[in-house]
């Protein structure tokens, strides 16, 4: 299925934007199988320590078809175990809400659309991988990607199949060395297109309002 890699890429895209649920102080080693496993293991073990968080993000798209880099900014909110809100605020507002196996999406142009993770392959994959990851399991992603641990610390994901490689060149995640939260995500496509995500201003263990995860209202 040639579109699968794209869907999986979408998974990674959101996954990395949410991966900052790790406690600080984790050590990680050099680029070796043992170090990588150790790093992943620690991330998995510590992922349950944070109940909720919110952060700001900036997305920069560098596509050949765009006249120039396009910058979008917004906020990400997450409450374990299954609530997430991805919201673009500027320049074009739009929201995606995940709540259990259901979700909402909307823009400032049209009505709110409901979806079910069982009924939407893209969002299903996003959510299942996301929650699998946040609960400490990387197995599914490792079936499709080779992992590489770099100093920084950073993780680089390279697609294993040629088919996937025709859509995704490489994904690089740079972590905050103190908190092991992603600071940057860089998705490179074979044709040279690139998507960059910068996360900042993490606020952990917040009392996030229910309405964030039940309504698609634009701010």
């Amino acid at each position, binding site marked *: 299925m040639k*579109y699968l890699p794209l869907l999986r890429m979408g998974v990674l895209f959101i996954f990395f934007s949410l991966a900052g649920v790790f406690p600080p102080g984790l050590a990680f080693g050099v680029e070796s199988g043992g170090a990588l496993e150790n790093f992943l293991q620690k991330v998995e073990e510590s992922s349950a320590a944070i109940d909720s968080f919110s952060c700001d993000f900036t997305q920069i798209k560098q596509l050949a*078809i765009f*006249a120039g880099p396009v910058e979008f900014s917004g906020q990400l909110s997450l409450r374990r175990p299954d609530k997430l809100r*991805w919201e673009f605020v500027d320049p074009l507002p739009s929201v995606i809400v995940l709540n259990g196996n259901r979700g909402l999406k909307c823009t400032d142009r049209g009505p709110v659309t409901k*979806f079910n993770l069982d*009924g*939407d*392959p893209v969002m299903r994959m996003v959510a299942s991988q996301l929650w699998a990851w946040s609960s400490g399991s990387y197995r599914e992603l490792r079936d499709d990607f080779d992992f590489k641990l770099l100093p920084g610390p950073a993780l680089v994901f390279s697609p294993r199949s040629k088919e996937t490689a025709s*859509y995704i060149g490489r994904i690089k995640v740079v972590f905050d060395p103190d908190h092991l939260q992603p600071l940057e995500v860089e998705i490179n496509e074979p044709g040279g297109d690139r998507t960059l995500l910068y996360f900042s201003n993490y606020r952990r263990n917040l009392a996030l309002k229910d309405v964030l995860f039940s309504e698609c209202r634009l701010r």
Partner: protein
Amino acid sequence: MISRSLIIKIVVLLVTLAGIYFSMRIELGEDALDMLPGTSLQGDFKLLQQLGMVNRIFISLELPSAPDPDPVPDSGLLASARALGEDLSLSPLFAEVFYQLPEGYQFRLAAELRQYLPVLADDGDLRRFEALMAPEVLREKLAEAFQALNSPAGLAMKRQIQGDPLGFTSVILEKLSTLRGALRLNIHDGFFISNDGRHCLIWAESAIPLTVSGNAVLVNQRLEEALARSLKERVTARIVGPLPHTLANAGTIRSDLARLLPVAIVALVTFLLLFLRDRRALLLVAIPFLAAPPAVALLAGFYGKVSAMALGFGIVLLGIGVDFAVHIYLGARGIHSTGKISGDLRGSLFMAFFTTIAVFAVLLLSSVAAHRQMALLGIIGLTWAFVLAWLLAPPLGAQSGVFTPNGPLFVKEMRLFGQGSHQRWLKLTIWLLLLAAGLSVWPSLRYNGDLRALDVPVQAVSDDERAFKGIWGGEGEQAFVVAVGREQDTVLNLNDRVYQTLARQEKSSGVQSLAVLLPGPDRQVENLARWREFQKTGLAGFERELRQAAIATGFTPAAFQPFLDWLESEPESLAPGDFLDGPLRPFIYSLFREFSEKGAIGKGESVETFLAATIVPDNPDNKAVLERLSSEIAGVTVLSNSRWRRQVEEDLKRDIVKLSTVAALLVIMICALFFRSPRPVLGVLAPVTSALAAMALFAAFTGGELNIMHALMGIMVIGLSVDYGIFMVRACLGGIDHRTLSAVSICAVSTLSGFGVLGFAEHPALHALGVTVLVGIGAAWPTALLVTPALLASSGNREEKP
């Protein structure tokens, strides 16, 4: 020296054993075609079979209603649908199972539609494309594309947006709603979901004919197992289609027969024992049943495969043969206790035999295949039954001493039945009133050609069908307009003409056609010519507009070069195969079939045949256009329940009139030949006329409808009633005899007790059979005893015998 009697017994034994042996190897058929009158109707039904409609099973999965229904389908519902679909797909009993469109079907479909868009787009579509290309709309569309590309889903949409930023493909996608027809379904992650989100539809095609009850049981068993394994908590299933009907009919018939047959047998045996008062006599009158095995074996030899329905009813019809033995037994008793059949009785028996055979021979002219098989079985069986009764009953009776002169008689009071003037006019008046009443209601009787009239009305099946229609639509009946031919192009062109004709209708909603996805080659040529014209004139200046709009909305001027390249490329034509294996296969497969069948010429050669169907609501609004399609487009057949009903009604009416007329003429001829006087002939026919009048009156009082079963059993009642008349007339002419009265009465009551029990059957066909016999014989019997002698009263007959 071997005696003649022993030789006869040995021959009978051998014939019976051979009959049992060969009848055990009989191949039974349960083809519904056998029960349909007329070849045109059978052809229609065959088309439906070829289209897979007869073997289709719809499964509607359902969650209980919630106070605040969420239109998003429940995960348990979808998981159940997936599990069930996967489970059934593994079974060889199901040829096709459609439960979910393949993952990524949207992308694949969009790509396929874009590839063939030039041949799919008609004049109206091109006008919509031009509207989308207007500068202000163009900019709005590109702004939407810009936002979509910056959303989390943007990475997956980039190529699609570059190739079709204005959504030309969506214009064609909208038209694909005609593939759904009147079905109200939404596609959710490839699943077929109802508007309220509580139901999920699966449809499958059985690999074995579901009109055969054995197959239906097998398929149902596999289905039940799969449902038990697949359905999640709270999810239930409704099964709709021919399957529940076949099961309900087979189950009801089985239950009816299990319940009523013992009653009928016990009633018959008790009655015979009560009036014959001799077990040996009971065995004697049962001799004609020995005719059944060889008759069945010969029938199988003649037809190869025998309709189960014909066999079942045919064997019941052989019960008439018992009447011969009853007459021989009662005729030989006392006076001929040595086992001789008197001359008078011989004449009566021969006449009764010839008239009965004549009536069955008339049934050979029926347009219903199963009727013809029943008739042949009846002719063979009754002939052999007659021979057996003739050869075996007298010597065996004499040998066992059952022809005692002092046995009980069913009718002892002779005064009422005599030929004297005793209440003669009263009897004749009542009879004439009955005939007048029958004649008066006859014109009001309707021939109900709806085959569903013989379908068992099971509440659960009706409830499921009603609920199914409420959920998925298609409340009314549907007509199938089928284009058939050896050439695929011809069939697609015909199908296209059908769709265009329907599309011109004012009320054309609910039409299900693949013409929008697969136009005929002629239309493809037209569309291509129009597209080329659009390329020449419609695209002038568009490239500049697009580049300017791209710049204005944040794209590079060359961002949509793939779209421009596609617009200017050479378009391709398409064939069914291009889409048949694609994501829309569930819909296309329902409407387009290619299959091989043996050619008429040459052994083993097969001929390709193509079928393309359009489904149209069969309502009064479409009646005229359906008639027009049928008459104006050669190669197109309209399969419609209302049309079938009319056709069956015409065939049935023709059959009833033709068969009754021929039967009446034959019976009159035989009687005239024997009696050479009109009054005895009238006496013979009196019970027949009473039976017909009573059956007409009963039908009028119970809804006024006649169906195939009435016609069939009506013929049988005529055959029996004639015999009563013959025996009574012969008895009257020879001086009325209480033994004849008793014999006729025993025959009538045994028939009533045997068949009449079926009047209590739940199955409409068995019920119709039972009540027809009950009413017909119920009227013919007293007429034979009371009216026939009265009609002959003044003809100077001999005195009554003591």
